């Protein structure tokens, strides 16, 4: 994905990031998702609670560990997740019919929030519709989900996680790219 970043971090996106977060952030994970027109792919409510690191090491505050697609993922201390942000670059018009992200506004401020404890009498959900060329910025602790595609429209998104955290040695980010 590194060959794609020069096209992604244009002047408008850099200005947006600078205004919201200031300087010092770098890319720590990039994934391109292509949800085909007939996709049945859906994702249940969750928070992004893990970061990808280059190797496994026993460090206080870091855990539990998982291995996903041959990469180590670990839940870091909450402060790291609270500082990180995610960019979702939309390469197709996206609405609730082709799997737009659904979110629970304000859930990012409630720490680790187990989906089974969501009280829908209190919380509300919002469908994040964007045009092709738009960007969603979110905190990883925001509860989010996505539905199956029902309108046979493709949905391509680049998911990029950014951080400014220095991990305690010997932990290190599996990907670190200064944009």
């Amino acid at each position: 994905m590194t060959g794609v970043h020069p096209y992604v971090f244009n002047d408008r996106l850099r200005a947006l990031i600078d205004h919201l977060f200031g300087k010092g952030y770098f890319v720590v994970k990039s994934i391109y998702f292509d949800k085909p027109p007939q996709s049945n792919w859906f994702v249940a409510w969750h928070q992004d609670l893990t970061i990808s690191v280059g190797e496994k090491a026993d460090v206080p505050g870091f855990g539990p560990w998982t291995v996903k697609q041959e990469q180590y993922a670990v839940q870091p201390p909450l402060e790291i997740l609270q500082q990180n942000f995610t960019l979702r670059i939309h390469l197709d018009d996206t609405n609730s019919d082709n799997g737009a992200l659904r979110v629970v506004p304000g859930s990012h401020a409630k720490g680790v929030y187990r989906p089974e404890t969501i009280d829908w009498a209190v919380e509300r959900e919002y469908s994040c519709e964007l045009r092709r060329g738009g960007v969603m910025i979110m905190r990883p602790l925001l509860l989010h989900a996505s539905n199956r595609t029902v309108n046979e429209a493709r949905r391509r998104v680049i998911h990029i996680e950014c951080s400014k955290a220095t991990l305690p040695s010997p932990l290190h980010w599996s990907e670190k790219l200064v944009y």
Partner: protein
Amino acid sequence: MMQLNYPIMQQFEQDGYALVNDIYTEAEVAAIIDAIETADHSGPVFRKTKDLFAIR
């Protein structure tokens, strides 16, 4: 320099997310898609199923 309006910053702080359209022109979107399609698709972090295609 981009002029970011107050509601976007306020929404991000309060709600934990913000939606911003028109970050890329149509030509820029096309260039991004072209870069993805010419990327190396042979690594261990490439997944393709009928429901999802993902590259890391």
